[in-house]
């Protein structure tokens, strides 16, 4: 009994049976999940899977057609203010004012979040330092590089120390250096006890950041769990990446006939195979590809990862 109460207290976000339709098209179909304090929860799926729509409902931007969202004990709807006081949203698009300085952007959104006076000024300074923008705080953000804007975009979201920080694909279009900086910042948030809802279609980001991951496709959660729990779903299958030229369509058809080959996906310059016991099957696969006239330039065995899980669950590759 005691344990159950402690678990419920730690729950920050609870989503139950969420459904959203746009016209005839159901873009979110019965999604349920929860996030606990200090946990980073990932929504992993391709573009169009419904991640941003889920985020929009969780952040109170659009209403759900069915289902419920409870945030820090308050029901979340577009008109609620109590629940919204607990979230920090980092939209996928840069949501900063180019004519204002970094400091002015932070001060403005801080006021909307209820901060004021010395608390606001102090927290603004802290976030500017955290983002590495302290020395350019008074410059208009239109003069910032893309990476600096991305960092400020995140900083605004965590300025008021939200209970739940929602990050919607924060690394899209970011250079590798800035991307790494963003990921390090997010890793640090969990240690401060902040719950994070993170959407991405980059498998590596989900693996690196998230305590639990929901694999989402066509508006539904296909599977949910820790990285290891999800990988176990594949039954220990490996992925073999073939790169080269030739008749990949015919080669794919031939490879599907081989025993132990579960899926063959791709075309053009390469094929991705899901197989049982990759090392053992490598030789016959290469031989069959050669027989079908495919000239291989590289062959790689990839041990099970989230990409394999997605392939296993949906029958298609997780790509941009």
């Amino acid at each position, binding site marked *: 009994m005691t344990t159950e109460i402690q678990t419920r207290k730690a729950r920050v976000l609870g989503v139950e049976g969420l459904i959203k339709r746009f016209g005839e098209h159901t873009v979110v179909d019965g999604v349920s999940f929860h996030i606990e304090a200090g946990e980073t929860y990932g929504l992993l799926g391709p573009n169009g899977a419904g991640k941003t729509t889920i985020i929009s409902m969780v*952040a109170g931007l659009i209403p759900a057609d069915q289902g419920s969202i409870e945030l820090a004990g308050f029901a979340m709807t577009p008109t609620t203010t109590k629940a*919204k006081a607990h979230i920090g*949203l980092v*939209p*996928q698009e840069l*949501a900063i*004012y*180019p004519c204002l300085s970094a400091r002015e952007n932070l001060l403005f959104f801080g006021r909307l979040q209820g901060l004021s006076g010395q608390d606001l000024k102090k927290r603004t300074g802290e976030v500017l330092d955290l983002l590495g923008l302290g020395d350019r705080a008074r410059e208009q953000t239109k003069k910032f590089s893309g990476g600096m804007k991305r960092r400020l975009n995140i900083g*605004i979201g965590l300025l008021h120390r939200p209970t739940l920080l929602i990050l919607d694909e924060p690394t899209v279009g970011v250079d590798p250096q800035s991307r790494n900086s963003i990921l390090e910042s997010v890793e640090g948030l969990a240690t401060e006890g902040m719950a994070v809802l993170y959407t991405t279609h980059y498998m590596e980001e989900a693996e690196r950041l998230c305590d639990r991951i929901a694999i989402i496709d066509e508006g539904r959660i296909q599977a949910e769990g820790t990285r290891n729990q999800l990988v176990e779903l594949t039954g220990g299958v490996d992925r073999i990446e073939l790169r080269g030229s030739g008749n990949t369509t015919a080669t794919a058809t031939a490879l599907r006939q081989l025993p132990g080959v579960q899926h063959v996906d791709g075309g053009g310059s390469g094929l991705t195979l899901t197989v049982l016991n990759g090392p053992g099957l490598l030789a016959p696969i290469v031989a069959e590809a050669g027989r079908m006239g495919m000239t291989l330039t590289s062959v790689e065995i990839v041990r099970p990862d989230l990409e394999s899980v997605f392939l296993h669950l949906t029958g298609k590759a997780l790509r941009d």
Partner: protein
Amino acid sequence: MRGLWAMIGNDLRQRIRDKSVLIFSLVVPLALMGVLNLSFGGFDSGSVELKPAIVVASSEDSGQLGTALLDAVDSLPIMDVTVRKVPAADVGRETRDTRADLGIILPADFTAGVVSGRAVSVQVVEGDSAGVETNVLISVVDGLLEQFVAGTVTAGAGEMAGLPHEVLGGLAQQAAAGNPALTLTEGQSSAEQLSLKGTLVAGQAGLFLLFTVGFGVLGLLAEREEGTLARLQSTPVAPGTIITAKALVGFILGVVATTILLTAGSLLFGVSFGSPAVVGLLVLAVAAAATSLTFIVARLVHSAEQANIAQSILGMVLGIAGGAFFPIEASGFLATLMDLNPVAAFIRGLGITAGGGGLPDVAIPLAIMLGFAAVATLASRLVPDRGARP
């Protein structure tokens, strides 16, 4: 409320910083006022400054009327005229060579002819540099001739009535030289007419107000395109705060810009609009009406670009129909419709205040503008939302 003020302050800071309001709400209308006043301001009632004119005239008439006519031309109160007398044969050449404004050739029997009622021909020669002054002089000569003919007609009527000849002569002289019994005075109907300069200043202020308020509510579309609208909507501000803040920003910008335009216009072009307090009320009312219009536009369009186009079209239509560039006249239903135009009501209200009218006198224009604001706001709730509003 704190969120509301934060949003208003943030928007105003951005609008001032990106200079868009300064350019489109103040610089452009002031420049346009200047150009329009340079082009048309000279035709303002009572403000045409006629240049000194030279008239070359023949003076071979031995009677009084010829002398009277030339004396009348020479002593015109509205312009400085110099009459130079030359022989009739030289009038054309002298007029041309001396670049005179007008030549007048009076026949030798001018007085005799007029008195006897015979047909008399007076010839005028326009100078090569004929302008407004020449037209004025011709009108004056024409008017004087009409007066002389009136004397002849009077004498004829007296003769038919059997009056003695000595009396007839006196009557004819009196009719020819006297002031007309009926005079036409051009005035201002109910003091509602602004001077042309005043109309241009008021009209441009009203027209550009329709553009200025667009920086408020229509800014929502820019926020959506820039991604900041989603972030605003995720903050714990009361429902309706965002749209209210945008509307107030448009209203404030409209009031400030219109006040500056009217003040600057008054100072630059010498126009007075009357009581500042009543003018202030008119400005508040027209800004409310213009702001309400942006609610409808915001619901009808998909993007900031569409909003700008729609607002420009509405602004030009309402501005021109309201008399921002020149007075528009209509009758029947169309006239009623045009009376409901807030720009027209604003200009009319300023006409009343310029003529000395007070608050009770501008009640109807005020009611029209506030009524327009109420109806447009209500209508915006009924128009299907195509996605711009939060």
